[in-house]
Each structure stands twice: as structure tokens, then as C-alpha cells.
């Protein structure tokens, strides 16, 4: 090591030590000032705090002024840093060395923003409110739906259709009325992000789209705020503490941002929501609870003083081991948000020139088929019912073939009589290579093609799915594979899928 290198290392160490000392002094000052502010209001303010009456039974902090006179002003009761009820409410965490009085005071004076009040935001906000975070902001533009309730634990059956933010605050107030709750009844956009984030110390990303993840990360880098980011789908979850320590862009000592870890958004068509992919309540709940935990750790340790190396925690509930902690790299040297070469600037973000939706690719409704390749549920119902009346058994199979391309588990929840289940995932895999390299395909994946080929080739194939998107793509793949016999067999889909079937034809068909 050269002498210059050694000097740099020594200086770093010296600065770190001074910063620690400085923070300690600030904490002491904070506590001393809070004592002075209160005792200066008392007539006998000079009484040394250590000499005052400290009898707990007569402790005065329950009075609104926070002090009282006893024995005609001869003694001033000691003013405790926390209110009496706070010692009781937070007692179980206060007695832990990781929190203690300093940690609790930091929690009380902190403001945390929860973006998204769903499966992640609900448990995260609940534990933060419980722990005594002073101010909690909640952003969400959605209303509560019945299908949210299995995982979004702050909402309730009576509050279906209520704004999620209001529903959450109702629960949180009942949990801890001493916290200040700030509602934002809107979806987060670039226009409002910086103004809102600026008022908070830590930001929690509990959202559900790639665009919001990049917007939130960029905003946190620009405003130098630590970001606790989590996500979950099906049985898996991810957790990262980003931009921590929250140093200015270009400072290599700062923590990596979302773009450092995932510089490219996933292709828009591949993005699966919880509504489409499914989500297990405790899986997303676990991730939300961990967000609260990481937030409490950041705040009680003192923002700016994080020394934990950055990591990505992977939770895979049905795997062994269920948790894996990935060591992340430091800030990327060419990161577009947090490096010295950053192109994400405050001006760019505020002016809207960073189009997050476009960056992540807008998902337009799939419109892959010609009108002649599609029928409505009403048209199909005539066919379905007429063959039903004529044939009695296996009706639709006799005259035409109905292929339901939902995944097997959904097919089993309810299906149209006589339909054949060929999951879209299997169709996708087969068609990708069937023509070029058939040997690489497991034999079972071609099974469905053979199955359809073996059915009388003149019978038309109707393809149906849940919403009418996969069915169109499935029709395309079937034609690619030559199942239409070069145009002799009609293959098409049922527009808007089984959702339309339930709405317009059979209201008893299960909704999920």
C-alpha cells in the first residue's frame, strides 16, 4: 500500500469516528434541549434535574403541560423524555439494547412514507405504527376489494369499496392513536413524488409495477433518502434496503439504488401481477413485516450511519432453504441514477422527460387476431347450447373443440362442460422450438399437439381463457404449429374469455 493510500484509509477512519462522535453529541443535545424546553416553563426551573422528585406514583407527565408543582413550587418533578403511556406501550422494545430510549426517541421524531397500501404496505405500516414512528404517510389511489382481504391485513370486509388509505388509517388509529397519519389518495406520479418524499426520512416501496419501482428509487436518490423496497409474487419475495447510506449521487460510499441492481426493466408483456399470478398472504406479509423491521433498524441506528453492506434477501416459501441473502455490489460506476455520470436529474424527473411508463414498456391490450378469428360469448353460447340440446352427452366435443388455456389449477376451479384443458404455459414452451429443434423438447410438451391432431381435423377449435388475452396468443401458436391444416380448420378465440361468459351468459360461473 502506498503512503497516499494509507493516508486515505486513515482519513476515512478519522472522518467516520468524528461523525460518530458528532451524532452522539447531537443526540445528547437533543435530549438536553427537550429537558430545558420543558423545565424553563416551570417557576423553579433552576432545580437540577437530578435532584427532583422522581416518585413514579406522582409523576406528572400526564398533565398536558408536562410538568407540575408539588409542595408549592419547592420541587419540580423530573420531566421524562417519553410520556408515561409511551413507557408502557413501547416497554417491550424499549428494554432491548437495540432500541432503548435513544432508539425510541428517534422513532418518535421520524417520518416514514409507505407507498402502496396493499399486501406489503398493510403489514409494514401496522408494525411501524405499533413501534411508535411519529409520522406515517400513506399513498394509494385504490379502493379495497374483496379479493384483497386475504393478505391486506389493515382492511376489512365492512370496508370493501372504501379508499385503501382511509381504511388503513382507520385500522392504524385503533392500533396506535398517538401516531400522526398523513393520507395521500392518489397514485404516485413523477409530478408529485419529490414534493411528498421530501417530507419523510425513510421511504417504503410497497407498490406493484416496475414503473413505480424506478420512480421511487430515482426520487430517493435525488432527495438522499434511504429506500426499503420489497416485492412478492406467488410464493416468492424480494427485499432490499437501497440507497443506504443515502449519500449524494456520485458518492461511491452511498448504497446502491434499484437501477444498480436491475438496470433494465422486465419486458412489459412478461410482468405478472398478483391478480394474474396469484399471491399467498403470508408470503407477501412476511416481506412487508421485514420492510418494517429494516425501517426500524435504519431509524434507531440513526440515518446516515448504516454500516450494513447492501443485500438482496430472497424468500422462496416452498424451497429449502426458504431464505437466501445475496451480497450486492456497491453503486454501479455507470448507474444512470446514483453514479457521477447520472442522467436522472431533478429537472428531468420533474419535467416529465423521464417517462417511466414508456421506459418499462406500456402494456397495451392484446389484439393479435383478425375479427374473423374471434367470436363473442353470445355467439359462442348459441353453439354451446345448441350442441348441448342435440347431443346430450359431451356436447361441445362432438361439433367443435373447446380448448381452455388457463393453468390447470384455474381450470379446476370451474370450467365449461366438454372443454379440454391445455395450459398456455405448455403451449408457449412447445411452439418456441417445435419446428427447429424437436429433440430438445421433453416429450410431454408435445403431447397436447398430438392430442389436438388426433381429434377429427375438420372440427373447429374454439380457444378460451380467463380474460381473452392468452386465448389470442394460443390461437396464433396453434396456427404456427400447423394445427389449422393450412387453413382447412377454423381456429379462433372467444372474446374477453370466461369473465365475459360469467357477465353475459352464466352469472353462476365462479368469479375469482
Amino acid at each position, binding site marked *: 500500500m502506498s503512503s497516499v493510500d494509507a493516508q486515505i484509509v486513515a482519513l476515512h477512519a478519522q472522518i467516520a469516528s468524528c461523525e460518530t462522535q458528532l451524532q452522539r453529541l447531537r443526540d445528547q443535545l437533543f435530549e438536553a434541549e427537550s429537558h430545558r424546553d420543558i423545565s424553563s416553563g416551570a417557576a423553579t426551573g433552576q432545580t437540577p434535574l437530578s435532584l427532583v422528585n422522581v416518585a413514579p406514583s406522582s409523576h406528572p407527565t400526564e398533565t398536558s403541560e408536562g410538568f407540575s408543582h408539588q409542595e408549592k413550587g419547592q420541587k419540580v418533578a423530573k420531566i421524562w423524555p417519553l410520556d408515561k403511556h409511551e413507557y408502557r406501550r413501547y416497554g417491550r422494545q424499549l428494554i432491548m439494547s437495540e432500541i432503548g430510549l435513544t432508539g425510541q426517541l428517534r422513532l418518535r421524531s421520524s417520518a416514514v412514507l409507505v407507498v*402502496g397500501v*396493499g*399486501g*406489503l*404496505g398493510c403489514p409494514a405500516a401496522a408494525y411501524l405504527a405499533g413501534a411508535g414512528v411519529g409520522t406515517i404517510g400513506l399513498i394509494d389511489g385504490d379502493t379495497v376489494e374483496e379479493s384483497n382481504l386475504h393478505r391486506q391485513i389493515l382492511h376489512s370486509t365492512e370496508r370493501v369499496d372504501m379508499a385503501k388509505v382511509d381504511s388503513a388509517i382507520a385500522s392504524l388509529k385503533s392500533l396506535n392513536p398517538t401516531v400522526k397519519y398523513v393520507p395521500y389518495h392518489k397514485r404516485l406520479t413523477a409530478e408529485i413524488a419529490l414534493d411528498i418524499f421530501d417530507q419523510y426520512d425513510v421511504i417504503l416501496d*410497497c*407498490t*406493484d*409495477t*416496475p414503473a*413505480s*419501482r424506478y420512480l421511487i428509487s430515482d426520487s430517493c436518490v435525488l432527495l438522499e433518502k434511504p429506500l426499503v423496497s*420489497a*416485492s*412478492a*409474487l*406467488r410464493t*416468492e*419475495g*424480494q427485499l432490499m434496503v437501497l440507497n443506504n447510506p443515502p449519500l449524494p449521487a456520485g458518492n461511491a460510499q452511498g448504497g446502491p439504488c434499484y437501477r444498480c*441492481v*436491475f*438496470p*433494465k*426493466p*422486465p*419486458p412489459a*408483456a*412478461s*410482468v*405478472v*401481477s*398478483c391478480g394474474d*399470478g396469484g*399471491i399467498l398472504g403470508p408470503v*407477501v406479509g412476511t*416481506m412487508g413485516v421485514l420492510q418494517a423491521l429494516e425501517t426500524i433498524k435504519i431509524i434507531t441506528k440513526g440515518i446516515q450511519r448504516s454500516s450494513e453492506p447492501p443485500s*438482496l434477501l*430472497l424468500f*422462496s416459501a416452498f*424451497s*429449502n*432453504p426458504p431464505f*437466501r*441473502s*445475496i*451480497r*450486492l*455490489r456497491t453503486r*454501479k*460506476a*455507470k448507474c444512470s441514477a446514483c453514479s457521477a455520470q447520472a442522467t436522472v436529474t431533478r429537472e428531468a424527473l420533474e419535467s416529465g422527460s423521464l417517462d417511466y411508463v414508456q421506459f418499462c414498456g406500456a402494456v397495451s391490450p392484446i389484439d393479435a387476431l383478425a375479427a374473423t378469428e374471434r367470436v363473442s360469448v353470445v355467439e359462442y353460447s348459441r353453439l354451446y347450447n345448441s350442441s348441448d340440446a342435440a347431443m346430450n352427452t359431451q356436447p361441445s366435443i362432438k361439433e367443435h373443440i373447446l380448448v381452455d388455456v388457463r393453468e390447470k389449477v384455474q381450470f379446476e376451479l370451474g370450467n365449461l362442460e366438454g372443454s379440454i384443458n391445455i395450459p398456455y*404455459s405448455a403451449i408457449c*414452451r412447445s411452439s*418456441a*422450438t417445435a419446428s*427447429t*429443434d424437436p429433440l*430438445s423438447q421433453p416429450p410431454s410438451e408435445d403431447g397436447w399437439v398430438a392430442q389436438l391432431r388426433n381429434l377429427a381435423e375438420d372440427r373447429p377449435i374454439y380457444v378460451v381463457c380467463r380474460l381473452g388475452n392468452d386465448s389470442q396468443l394460443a390461437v396464433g401458436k396453434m396456427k404456427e404449429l400447423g394445427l389449422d391444416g393450412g387453413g382447412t380448420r377454423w381456429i379462433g378465440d372467444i372474446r374477453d374469455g370466461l369473465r365475459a361468459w360469467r357477465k353475459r351468459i352464466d352469472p353462476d360461473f365462479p368469479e375469482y
Partner: protein
Amino acid sequence: MASNRPPPGHFELLYFAAASDFAGRNTENIPAPIVATDLFGVLEQRYPGITEKVLSSCAVTVNLQYVDLEGEDAADKDLIIQEGDEVAIIPPVSSG
């Protein structure tokens, strides 16, 4: 996805989220050693289309360490995946 030791001459590849959907499996053993930057090419041969649809946005880890393989000056561009390594393909999950 029980983490078993891969057989001699192989490393273990773990697929998460969208990667496991595309591959239709959670784990598989792949011959080692290979240069880390060749990994996507090997997977593209096995699962045509996976690079564009999944891998291009994924994080890659080797033995629980995030590796940087993107671009000319990537920090880990010379990394060799060795026999017995645990490699993971981690797509960004955005829902919640």
C-alpha cells in the same frame, strides 16, 4: 428447490420467479466450468427466447454474490463458474 450438491463436473442453477416459469423448473445442473458471460448463451440454447423474455432484465448471482456481467467493462466479465457453484437467475419481481 432443495439445494442438492450438483454431480461432479456440474454447477447448480436456481431459477426464481419468471425464470422458473419460462424454464419450467426451479433448478438444474449444468456442466462446469464455464465463463460466466457465456451462461446466457447456454441457457438460450436450452430455452430459446429466454434471453429476450427473461434473462435480459435478471440479476445473476454466484455463490450468493451478485455478479456484474453486463457490458465491456463489467466487473465480473472474467469470472469462471466452477464445479459445485450455486448460480441463481433472479428476475425483478415488481408486484406486491
